[in-house]
């Protein structure tokens, strides 16, 4: 753990710093856009969703386009956002548009074991990959998730104190 943050200190462009910057900026934007604090459950839920989306989006964009899971994550967020925007404007008709799951080559999905399939569901973009590639992406995804959790915890602690 200490080596992680030391390495991120030394390396100003590590994933942690990049993510931290982007996420903080996104949070700031969210807090500015948001109306004054509302305590209703629905609003809180919406806020929570936005914050979570901001967290994932900033993580994915700081990882860069090289990783398949980052691309898939960004795609998912954008689709959801666009889907929700369309929902607001068009009402029920956008129910069809929301189903933007890209058809993946079926052989990757069919032949997997049960655990493999559940891993595919967990890792963004894991549906269309071979197992070996899935394992690669999982490894990188785990590293980034860990960094994300650490940064978010630190942010919260900073705010809380």
């Amino acid at each position, binding site marked *: *753990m200490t080596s992680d*943050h030391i390495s*991120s*200190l030394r390396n100003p462009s590590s994933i*942690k*710093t990049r993510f*931290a910057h982007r996420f*903080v*900026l996104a*949070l*700031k934007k*969210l*807090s500015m856009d*948001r109306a*004054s*604090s*509302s*305590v*209703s*459950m629905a609003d*809180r839920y919406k*806020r*929570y969703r*936005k*914050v*979570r989306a*901001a*967290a994932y989006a900033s993580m994915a964009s700081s990882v860069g386009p090289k990783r398949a899971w980052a691309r898939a994550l960004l795609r*998912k967020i954008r689709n*959801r956002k666009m889907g929700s925007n369309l929902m607001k404007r068009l009402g029920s008709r956008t129910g069809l548009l929301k189903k933007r799951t890209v058809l993946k080559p079926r052989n990757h999905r069919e032949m997997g074991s049960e*655990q*493999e399939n*559940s*891993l595919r569901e*967990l*890792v963004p973009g894991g549906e269309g990959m071979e*197992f*070996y590639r899935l*394992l*690669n992406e*999982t*490894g990188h*995804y*785990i*590293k980034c*998730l*860990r960094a994300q*959790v*650490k*940064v*978010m*915890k*630190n*942010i*919260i*602690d*900073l*705010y*809380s*104190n």
Partner: protein
Amino acid sequence: MDMVAAIESENWQVNGNNLINTSVEMIPMNNSTVEPSACSAASMVDSFCPQNWDQQANSETLSNLDSVRANLGWNPNQILRSGVFLPAVPGMIHQSLPHFPADSAFIERAARFSSFSGGNFGEMMNSFTIPDPLNPYSHTFASMQGPHEIFRDNGYEMNLAEACKEASFPVEHGTEMSPLQNEKRRENFLRSQEEVKNAVDILLNESGMDEFNNRDPIEKFEGAAVESSGQGLGFKKRKRIAQNEKKEAPQPCVETEKDRVESKPKGDQDPASSSKPVGKQGKQGSQGSDIPKEEYIHVRARRGQATNSHSLAERVRREKISERMKYLQDLVPGCSKVTGKAVMLDEIINYVQSLQRQVEFLSMKLATVNPQLEFNIEAFLAKDVLQPRTSLPSSLTFPPDMNVLYPPLHPSQPTLIQSGIPGLGNSSDALRRAINLRSTAVSEEFKEPSSQQVPNAWEDELHNVVQMGFNSSPTIDEQDLVLFCISSNLASFID
């Protein structure tokens, strides 16, 4: 052609019964290929056999030659199968055979020829009594058709090509054959050399002969024979043959041959898909010295494994996957003791799920934090956000019961959730039920023996919430509501 075939078959019956039987046992796959290639083998040997047979009929080494011929009869088959080996090779042997009675260096040459085929030959040389100078050759050749047979034959063939390079020309001069035969032999030999060279170019970067020489000295071979055999085309296949022979004597020969066969088309078709490097050939140990750099990486079928190209690729894929799993094992905390792909995958899945839930939970916390506090970005970035804060007590013992978490509260936390708590207008009964369910689930997770780290993550989350939510004097309802928050977040905030 018929006569040749007939005579050949007769020879096989006479001398090669054991050969055929043993090799057939060892290599059931060969059966299918023997018959179709028999005719072509006959046609190949045709160019050489008739002339040689005339001589052999006269020489007293008829028995030897028969065995050798039978031996060689196999070789063309394998030559055909492999597609790499040369039809001219048996011819070379025939040429050199007449020299046996006359050649004082016969034993040396025989040793040279046979040394390629394996250390066992060396052993046999030592163990067999040698009634006359010719017999070791025949003995060894006849008995070479043991478990290592064709394997050695392959080496024998390959190395014959080289040895013939040395020996062929003097041999040719010495024979009484017609110039026509000499020409034919020479052109065959040259063609064979060309073919071999092509194969080598296709498959390998040219490696120096030195490496082969470097490798052999310590092995069971007779040193002189080895060194002399080290000359010629020092390509990798021979090295691997020698290597394998030394290391694993009882290895079925088909594997290596098939492997080479498979690796050649592999190398041809897909140079990019490199499998295991030759240096790391599983059981077959390394020679210790430098292995030549190859363009394509060959996979060698291990002993007792199928040599189908599909299964080889499968095996490579499986090994890559297991390597990845090991890497993931290091990444996921607490998985060092876990063995097995399924359990490992389960652990990985659990870990990823817990990390994702943590992110969701923290984002929920942030969402509640936001409206309360001002976001001072500059102050934020000025401080080092990346340093782990020590506000959380680092040394948390791991209580099996959730209630134990309640006492160590930090009253310093502002009541962030409390403002939101009244908003949760749920009946306390439902809450208590949810909380009980959740607490049992969590405590079960806490007691989970497989890893301590995953429950630690839960512990951190809970502790965060506890810190956040609890004041100096929390009421029971508030506690319930906080726990309800936890439960709902952790359980169901899924896309």
